[in-house]
């Protein structure tokens, strides 16, 4: 492994001009997430940020920096379909969080892109565990709408937020009902009224008229959702709430709904599949932790896959700002409970990218895809495996975080150098 790291260090020093760099990751088990499946002893060639060749017979270009995977695994970078990376630094310190705004006069129009901090220290500690892309979720404040979500990469670069206005999040579970005034009927009435306000924008707001649910600014922000150009992510868990969401989509074409949480989705799996509604679930959610999730089951993932539902996995039972990096463990447990390995790995890579409309650029290893490549020292879904090298947009990234710096400072406890004078 040390050889690999030093090979990468050479790569880093050579990387001065970001453009026109070529890398070949060789000698690994390549998970393509395409019809090619898994290729043994294969090579991935990256040029100018993109993947240009994948295969057992792929030629290594003469100008390529070679990264020898030494028989490890080579996969697309992980894509977290739910995260708050760069939005929360210390969850209990309100001065360091930008995911929710309970005091704001606005709701739908709140855009997490304006709060994202690419220098947040948890971004690197998630990246070095293999996470290269993530959806950023706002949290609800004072009503059912949390605001607009965005998509990021985990390079920490100034331009790492690569898409904003990616989706709108609303909570239609028990907590949303509480925010809407105290019941599910109140939450759905508010959602119906809000959608009508958006459809009526801007005419309804001419003169002094206000929306029934939304102000002018929020109604404008919901218009792309009403027109089906931006997905509406509904946080729901109870089977009855999921059925209501399915009906809501039917009644409001061309609305596109994605459900998140979805603890009891297995009960309505066939209806979800028929409606074409994707589900973002946590395969580890098995406790009846609330009356919304009494039907939680470790079989949720396997049953949804079997029914043909589009399923992505998230770390909902952990968190999204510090431990989105646990995606492989959550996916591995789905495998332990009956999901095929390829389906589980897809659920933390290509499927999230597809749900957010970027499945033609991220989540697979094939020519034309971005050079988001992770080299692992073993099966990525095994808890004892870890990445040894990570590329984002075709560039190698540092395998260091604030956490690894602390580790290195304290691992030799008997060294005489005072701790604060160590690296």
């Amino acid at each position: 492994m040390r050889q690999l790291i030093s090979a990468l260090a050479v790569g880093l020093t050579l990387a001065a001009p970001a453009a026109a760099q070529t890398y070949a990751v060789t000698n690994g088990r390549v998970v393509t997430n395409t019809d090619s499946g898994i290729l043994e002893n294969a090579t991935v060639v990256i040029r100018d940020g993109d993947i240009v060749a994948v295969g057992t017979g792929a030629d290594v270009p003469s100008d390529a920096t070679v990264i020898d995977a030494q028989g490890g695994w080579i996969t697309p970078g992980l894509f977290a379909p739910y995260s708050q990376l760069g939005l929360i630094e210390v969850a209990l310190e309100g001065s360091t969080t930008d995911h929710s705004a309970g005091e704001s006069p606005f709701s739908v129009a709140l855009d997490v892109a304006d709060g994202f901090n690419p220098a947040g220290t948890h971004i690197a500690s998630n990246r070095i565990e293999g996470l290269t892309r993530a959806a950023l979720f706002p949290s609800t404040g004072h009503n059912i709408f949390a605001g607009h979500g965005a998509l990021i990469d985990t390079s920490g670069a100034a331009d790492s937020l690569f898409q904003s206005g990616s989706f709108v999040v609303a909570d239609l579970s028990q907590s949303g009902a509480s925010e809407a005034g105290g019941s599910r009927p109140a939450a759905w009435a508010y959602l119906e009224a809000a959608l009508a306000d958006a459809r009526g924008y801007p005419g309804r707001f001419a003169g002094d008229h206000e929306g029934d649910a939304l102000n002018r600014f929020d109604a404008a922000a919901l218009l792309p959702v009403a027109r089906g150009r931006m997905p509406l992510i509904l946080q729901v868990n109870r089977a009855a709430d999921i059925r209501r969401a399915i009906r809501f989509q039917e009644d409001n074409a061309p609305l596109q709904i994605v459900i998140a949480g979805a603890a009891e989705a297995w009960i309505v799996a066939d209806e979800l599949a028929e409606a074409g509604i994707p589900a973002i679930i946590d395969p580890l959610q098995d406790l009846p932790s609330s009356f919304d999730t009494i039907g939680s089951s470790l079989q949720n993932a396997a049953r949804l896959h079997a029914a043909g539902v589009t399923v992505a996995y998230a770390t909902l039972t952990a968190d999204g700002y510090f431990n989105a990096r646990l995606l492989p463990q959550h996916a591995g447990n789905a495998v332990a409970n009956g999901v095929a390995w390829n389906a589980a790995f897809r659920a933390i890579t290509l499927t999230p990218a597809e749900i957010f409309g970027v499945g033609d650029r991220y989540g697979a290893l094939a020519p034309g895809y971005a050079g988001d490549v992770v080299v692992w020292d073993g099966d990525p879904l095994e808890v004892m495996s870890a990445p040894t090298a990570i590329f984002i947009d075709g560039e190698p990234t540092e395998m260091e975080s604030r956490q690894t710096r602390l580790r290195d400072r304290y691992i030799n406890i008997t060294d005489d150098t005072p701790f604060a004078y160590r690296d």
Partner: protein
Amino acid sequence: MKLTASLPAAAALTAAFALAACNGGSEPSDNGGTNGSDSGDGEIVRINLDPYPSTYRPRPSGVTLIRGGTVLDGVGGQIDNGDVLIENGRIAAVGTGLEAPEGATVIDAAGRYVTPGIIDIHSHLGVYPSPGANAHSDGNEATEPVTAEVWAEHSVWPQDPGFEHALAGGVTTLHILPGSANLFGGRGITLRNVAARTVQEMKFPDAPYTLKMACGENPSRVYGNRGRSPATDMGNMAGYRASWIRASDYRDSWEEYWAEAEAGEDADPPTQDLELDTLMGVLEGEILVQMHCYRADQMAQVIDMSEEFGYQVTTFHHAVEAYKIPDLLAEAGSCAAVWADWGGFKMEAYDSVRENLAMTHANGACAMIHSDDDNGIQRLNQEIAKALGDGRRAGLDISEAEAWSWVSSNPAHALGIGDQTGALQEGLRADIVLWSGNPYSTYTRADQVWIDGALSYDRRNEDLQPVRDFMLGQPGEGEQ
């Protein structure tokens, strides 16, 4: 037989045994202990130390031979192609080539792993049960910063479905604590993970009581927000110290009373005080301190305080910065119970590193995993796998056999039950998990779990999968 206890494991175990010897015994100390010396004089007022006694009765144990598995014994040993024999609820033999007694149930464990049952030293199952409901939020008596008088066992709801999920994850013993809102949160209780109607039926027989204490942000936030003390770290320390002074006086007054009464003098007993009973039990070494503390500097100050008042902190819980002070922990004889990779949720959790458990262990302190979570408790084998993998990548040489002490013998000793469970050793309770494969793999699951030799969970037999009353008639009934 291959026994591979390496040096760090041995050092950690020594520390844990020292703890058990110091704090786990129930023998009276020189000056009479919590209840004075037993003079046989019925008129002398005594404090009832066990008013809610365990009524736990093990389910019948058969004779079972688990044959040909990879045995991790929980104290650093590994036996390939090993056998474990269960008789009368106890481990009768561990080795290779054991003969099956007549009538024994023989289980072929080839290709599978056999370990001691998992012990979680930090759980709130029952006191914060599923489903979360206002009526069941029974873990924090957050009305006063010092509530050493409350006992977690009086809040445990035995019908929490979380218990059966933990069982499916191989948990055979768990320690239920009050929450961390208070400086002194109350007594904890060690339970067998058995389905029962009452908490008394779950209580681990003769396990010592524990006292939950809390450092740092939680007490100062909870009470500071109400405009009262403690509002700061220094207020926290003042609050503990004032209580220990009162507890010392209380102990002196009882000892004076017992001495006079036993000498035949006419003496009035002090008024019994539930709060001070618990603190006195700590000063007498009968009640084990389990203290929530994140930061290295705060743990160091608490260690000084324990020396000021003459007690020991058995275990620092969460101990996110234990890796910074393994030397101080080892010197104090205090263990660290930690997560594999939680952090970031508050300032005192900001310096979390994934190598905390492995570094603390390898640098000479007693360390173990804990869950503090109804999800995490279901996969503590995976939690130590992460810690082991990260530790090895950092260059620490720790075997799988050694790391199993993090879920078995180390928490057992830190709970004062290390002479009862936590290892596959002859004579101990037969608390055993048979895993479908290597338990350090994500894909491995507990196939069968024995508690006191009784097969209590079987992944392939629904008749051996307990279902709590709450789940009957619910959409999730019988779901795992």
